[in-house]
């Protein structure tokens, strides 16, 4: 294998600890270094497409040592993290100028990226927990970065629930270790296959679902998200909603359910129910919001529901032994929606940051007529809204279409109906954003505002272009076979994961 896997962790980690040394005077230099780090991670993630491999840390043989595993799902997640981190970092260059401790912000940002990259590469379940905590701790600090009343309150709430979730995961890991005697995920999965899921392991699986469900903000574990995501600075909201809840929640959950424990009918139904609850409750709560970032945060809950629904449907079909093709299609839809949501939701949060920076408010009722004043922001926001609602040919349309086809083929017509209904709710909430923020009368106090320039504009425009082009991931067979199909195969292969990753 050409690329040594630890560089994905080493680059952001080293940069994160070097950056605070630049101090107040070296702010510009620190920004450039941080941007170089995220861009090189994106380049490395692109270079990793289609590759797979195992790296033994410190040359300790498996299963004694810690190993890093690159497979299709990991490289898909690395790519999503790379794209969103590069976009958000570029946006931060301009946006974070008004905060005082910019180099500290940049190093926390990179620490979070290091944690997420480590989590998706980890092949060892305790190591997964360690990286989960690195990413979570950095995100708690970033949510409270503004140090205002609301930021601190949201950060405390997020931190209490996040720490409880981490402890659930740690307890589950302890139970798994007690029952199987290994920590390597491939070996655990082999041990689980031979012993079957006994009471202790079943309890551990329940703890994993609750713990990762809290991290993914699935309804009914979502209470922290609508406070935490709007309170963070806009690029961090983009990172949190775009990739953090997916990496820490959905990816870890899928990895544990599919590759370690193996799918079962009960878990499949549980994921479907959690997904549908999140979709419907998130969408209803979002429509009533007037704070633009809060509305988008609730819509994240709703969208994460789509991803979990797709994965859960796949798990159910696999466990029942139905046609593999439709199970793959459901998982394909879920994972494609995950990547799409990473791009368009981070773009939406960046545009909300641009609006907030220009107008000084997040309340939709105090805005209006911004289309003339903020043309780039408006275009980017419209493209992202069209994607999230699912208007062809934008990206969200394809992933929802695939989910609907999979649900119909599996004879779950009501699930297909729920998907369409929630899409309508999504249409209402983003029409509301368009109507109140960009159309209508311009209030008098906003007549002198100026649009953000430079890197912020570049970040928004490049993500908007990506939103339009994402459809090619499914329409161009070469790209589909290289990026999405390997990731789907990792999950449909299920416990055969041990064959690649351990031995």
């Amino acid at each position, binding site marked *: 294998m050409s690329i040594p896997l630890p560089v994905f962790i080493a680059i952001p980690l080293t940069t994160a600890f070097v950056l605070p040394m630049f101090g107040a005077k070296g702010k510009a230099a620190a920004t450039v270094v941080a941007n170089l780090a995220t861009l090189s991670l994106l380049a490395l993630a692109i270079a990793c497409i289609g590759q797979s491999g195992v790296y033994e840390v410190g040359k300790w043989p498996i299963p004694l040592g810690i190993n890093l595993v690159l497979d299709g799902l990991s490289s898909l997640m690395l790519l999503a993290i790379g794209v969103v981190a590069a976009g958000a970092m570029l946006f931060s260059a301009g946006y974070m100028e008004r905060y005082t401790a910019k180099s500290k912000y940049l190093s926390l940002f990179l620490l979070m990226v290091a944690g997420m990259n480590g989590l998706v590469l980890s092949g060892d379940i305790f190591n997964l927990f360690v990286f989960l*905590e690195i990413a979570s701790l950095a995100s708690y600090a970033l949510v409270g970065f503004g140090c205002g009343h609301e930021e601190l309150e949201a950060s405390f709430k997020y931190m209490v629930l996040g720490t409880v979730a981490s402890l659930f995961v740690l307890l589950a890991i302890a139970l798994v270790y007690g029952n199987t005697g290994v*920590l390597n995920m491939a070996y655990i999965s082999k041990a689980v296959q031979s012993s079957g899921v006994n009471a202790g392991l079943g309890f551990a699986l329940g703890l994993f679902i609750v713990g990762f469900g809290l991290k993914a903000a699935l309804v009914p574990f979502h209470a922290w998200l609508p406070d935490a995501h709007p309170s963070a600075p806009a690029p961090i909201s983009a990172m949190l909603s775009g990739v953090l809840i997916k990496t820490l929640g959905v990816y870890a959950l899928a990895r544990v359910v599919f590759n370690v424990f193996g799918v079962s009918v009960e878990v499949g139904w549980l994921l479907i129910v959690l997904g549908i609850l999140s979709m419907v409750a998130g969408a209803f709560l979002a429509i009533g919001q007037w704070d633009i970032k809060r509305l988008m945060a609730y819509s994240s809950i709703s969208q994460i529901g789509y991803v979990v629904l797709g994965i859960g449907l796949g798990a159910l079909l696999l466990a029942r032994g139905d046609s593999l093709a439709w199970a793959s299609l459901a998982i394909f839809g879920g994972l494609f929606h995950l990547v799409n949501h990473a791009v368009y939701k981070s773009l939406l949060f960046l545009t909300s940051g641009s609006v907030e920076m220009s107008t000084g408010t997040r309340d939709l009722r105090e805005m209006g007529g911004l289309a003339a004043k903020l043309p780039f922001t408006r275009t980017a926001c419209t493209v992202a809204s069209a994607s999230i609602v699912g208007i062809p040919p934008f990206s969200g349309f394809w992933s929802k279409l695939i989910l609907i086809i999979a649900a119909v083929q599996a004879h779950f017509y009501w699930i297909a109906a729920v998907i369409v209904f929630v899409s309508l709710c999504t249409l209402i909430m983003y029409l509301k954003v368009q109507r109140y923020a960009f159309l209508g009368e311009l209030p008098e106090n906003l007549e002198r505002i100026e649009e953000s320039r430079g890197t912020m504009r570049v970040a928004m425009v490049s993500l908007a272009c990506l939103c339009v082009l994402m459809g090619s991931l499914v329409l161009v067979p070469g790209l589909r076979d290289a990026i999405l199909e390997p990731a789907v195969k990792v999950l449909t292969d299920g416990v055969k994961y041990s064959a690649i990753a351990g031995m």
Partner: protein
Amino acid sequence: MPYALCFLLFVIGLYCAVVKKNMVKIVLGILIMECAVNLFLVMLGYRHDGVAPIIDRAYYDPGTGQIAAGFINNSVDPLPQALVLTSIVIGLGSLALMISICIRIYEKYGTFDITQIRRLRG
């Protein structure tokens, strides 16, 4: 029996973190949960009348390079101890962050009571 007590400790911590209104008590509840999980990990590796997992002359035969079977059968599992050390360090990091956020909130609001710290709603 010790496992049940350990689980009880975990539940007490969870109760404390969920029910209490004072922020410092919530933090203490999380600490109790953390201690319960650490204790559970240590107990997994514990062996009654076991020996420390260090190979010394009594168990190692330099001539053949063999480790005595008695050592493998009697020694305590060292891996959970390593895990607990890692998890204690992580716990320390999150405790420091949590307490510093508590102090900043107290400076802003003048209270530790979470029922009075409610600017976010909806």
